[in-house]
């Protein structure tokens, strides 16, 4: 009895293993749309996916939150059932990423602009609201800032009061997204770069072209930056860099001395930490500010507080467009891609009273929306 039991157990396990092995043939096609990409677009895309799955005969799409960069990497890895059909992005696709797509045979990419998102610089509702300028943000968070004699020095500021005497004397402690995040890309591009341009030398550098090497080197000398930086950028680019490239290398670097804390892609976690620590400041998408308006408050940036209206009108300085990209080659092969995109851009989703608008997406203007719908209908190919 006992031995037959054991033998039976073995047999059944072995048979099951064989069965498992026999079904390992690669799946040629899918009937579920596969979506990857930005964690900022994820909360909107999942709502659309759910409504789409419930109200149509298509299966609801599968959505992974990989971050904008990670999503575009997967998206551009090739054409076929085991590559994603759609990727969400909280910034526009970069030229280098588009080239990567092309080199992997992903040549028919359709770009869909879905709306705007503000990046909130927020603190606990228990603390007093901060009034910041982009310059304050830059000085508080840049790795190197202009010192007394105009040369760049390692960031010496430890309290907000050091940065700007009108700000409170609390230690600078900022929780923000890691470099893989689209939120971080947009933040450095909009807030840090905006603030850095308040410095005359850096702004002059930003405007110099690729053919003005000697001028670039002069400004760099003024800023106390070694010429080796220029050579390194030239080498990595493979051609003479523009002043803008050097500017990026100098202004986009976030301090690494523990003042800026990378809090992962989990925006909820940042909100929780802000609630526990009234001195800390957090950086995250506007939709999380709206959902947690009772726990955290957005800071006023350059005189404008983050609100639905100020972001939609473009007055709030730290706002960015949200996109998704469709792999044209998969349309017609994987069912429902165009219908999903149509649902995303429909009036009941992103109209004035749409369900995405209710969740904090800042909608497009009517004319923009019509253009986007037309692009989806005709699958207009993105060119860069």
């Amino acid at each position, binding site marked *: 009895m006992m031995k037959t039991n054991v*033998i039976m157990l073995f047999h059944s396990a072995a048979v099951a*293993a064989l069965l498992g092995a026999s079904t390992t043939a690669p799946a040629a096609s899918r009937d579920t749309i596969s979506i990857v990409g930005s964690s900022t677009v994820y909360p909107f895309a*999942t*709502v659309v996916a*759910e409504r789409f799955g419930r109200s149509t005969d298509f299966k609801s799409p599968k*959505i992974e939150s990989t971050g904008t960069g990670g999503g575009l990497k997967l998206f551009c890895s090739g054409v076929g*059932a085991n590559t994603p059909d759609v990727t969400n992005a909280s910034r526009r696709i970069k030229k280098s990423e588009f080239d990567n797509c092309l080199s992997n045979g992903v040549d028919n990419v359709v770009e869909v602009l879905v709306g705007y998102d503000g990046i909130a610089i927020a603190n606990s509702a228990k603390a007093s609201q901060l009034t910041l300028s982009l310059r304050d943000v830059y000085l508080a968070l840049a790795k190197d800032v202009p010192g007394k004699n105009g040369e760049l020095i390692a960031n010496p500021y430890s309290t907000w009061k050091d940065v700007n005497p009108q700000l409170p004397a609390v230690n600078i402690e900022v929780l923000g997204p890691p470099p893989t995040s689209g939120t971080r890309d947009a933040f450095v591009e909009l807030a840090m770069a905006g603030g850095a341009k308040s410095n005359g030398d850096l702004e002059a550098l930003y405007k110099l072209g690729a053919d003005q090497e000697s001028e670039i080197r002069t400004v760099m000398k003024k800023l106390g930056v070694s010429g080796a930086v220029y050579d390194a950028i030239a080498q990595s680019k493979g051609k003479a860099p523009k002043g803008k490239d050097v500017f990026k290398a100098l202004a986009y670097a976030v301090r690494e001395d523990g003042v800026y804390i990378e809090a992962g892609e989990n925006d909820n976690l940042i909100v929780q930490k802000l609630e526990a620590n009234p001195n800390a400041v957090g950086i995250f998408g506007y939709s999380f500010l709206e959902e947690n308006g009772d726990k955290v408050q957005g800071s006023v940036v350059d005189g404008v507080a983050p609100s639905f209206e100020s972001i939609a009108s473009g007055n709030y300085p730290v706002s960015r467009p949200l996109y998704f990209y469709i792999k044209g080659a998969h349309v017609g092969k994987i069912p429902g891609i165009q219908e999903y995109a149509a649902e995303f851009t429909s009036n009941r989703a992103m109209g004035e009273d749409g369900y995405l608008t209710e969740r904090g997406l800042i909608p497009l203007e009517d004319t923009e929306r019509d253009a986007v719908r037309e692009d989806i209908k005709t699958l207009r190919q993105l060119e860069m």
Partner: protein
Amino acid sequence: MNSNEDYRTTALIQASLRKRYARERRFRLYGMLAVLAGFVFLFLLLADIIIKGTPAFTQHYIKVTVDFDRDSLGLPQNFTSEDLARADYGAVIKRSLREMFPDVSIRAEKRRLYRLISIGAEYSLRDMVVADPALVGKKRNIWLLAHSEASSYLKGQVAAATEEAERKVKDVQMRWLNALREEGRTELRFNTTFFLAGDSREPELAGIKAALVGSLYTLLVTFCLAFPIGVMAAIYLEEFAPRNRLTDLIEININNLAAVPSIVFGLLGLAVFINFFELPRSAPLVGGIVLALMTLPTIIITSRAAIQAVPPSIHEAALGVGASKLQTILHHVLPVAMPGILTGSIIGMAQALGETAPLLMIGMVAFIMEVPAGVTDPATVLPVQIFLWADSPERGFTEKTSAAIMVLMAFLIMMNAAAVYLRRRFERK
């Protein structure tokens, strides 16, 4: 002199004895404190999860007099079942709510009124009408699922004392809900959706079933691969393999493999199974294979220990009466070793059940609504579901997160109970 010395020795011993006893008492006290500290932490953790999670197992329904008016539904004169599936049930619910509260006229207030009922009510009305087209044109009292915010107010989770701006449920909504409650139009029911539905972005519609089934499929694949391979490897290494440098090396490597961080197996799964063998992304098949690799060392090590623990007398007696090596192993060694092997395997499986890191790499951390129908369908697993809910901005997911943790723990306790039961059964024989 002799007696004097004796006396001194006794005194010395007695003095040191007291010290030794005191030391022992202290040691025992530390031990008890350690156990107590462990219990306190465990208790706090469990109490927190259970207190937070219990409300998730019930949710409110609101009785609404629904008027299935053909115009509101947007149906043509002679409608087909296809028209019925596409009709505007949201408009019907909105109209019915407005009729119940006729004094609401401001647009913003209307929107607040509509937010009392879950979006899922539209789909349940659709299913009702499609099943029974005769409902069109009639009025019915129907219990509709409440929005998670309304439900959380009715459950008493919203403190009315907090400032209105800081609450999701506004004063006017509280008034409506109180009125409904007084009329007996609200009801607290057991939340079957939580066990029968897949994931959703609406807390009141979100369920654990897709993740539960995903976990089952993943563990099935893991077990079917890891158990036979692990036990065979253990038998071969214990009973057949010669003792030499090579087997020593293999043994050291297996032990090291057991200590490799699980994310590494995820990277391996991505590189080998998805990129090279082109198996589908996000599928329990790949997840199961990856977790099988992760649990293999555990199973091999525990199985070897169990086989080693079989008394040599059994082994030698069997060989002595003329049994072959295979017969000895299958008839005598394995049955005795089975309880140990099973315990080790189930503990390995329990570890696999709680794993998320390797699944991140192979795309199983995703928003998936559909319940998977096989091992190649996109799926997610219980711990991933917990992670995703913890990460959602909607407040209603806080209680769902704790409830999902309770389900996961129930699953784990069941697996451990199975291990205990199987061991008892085999040992009795």
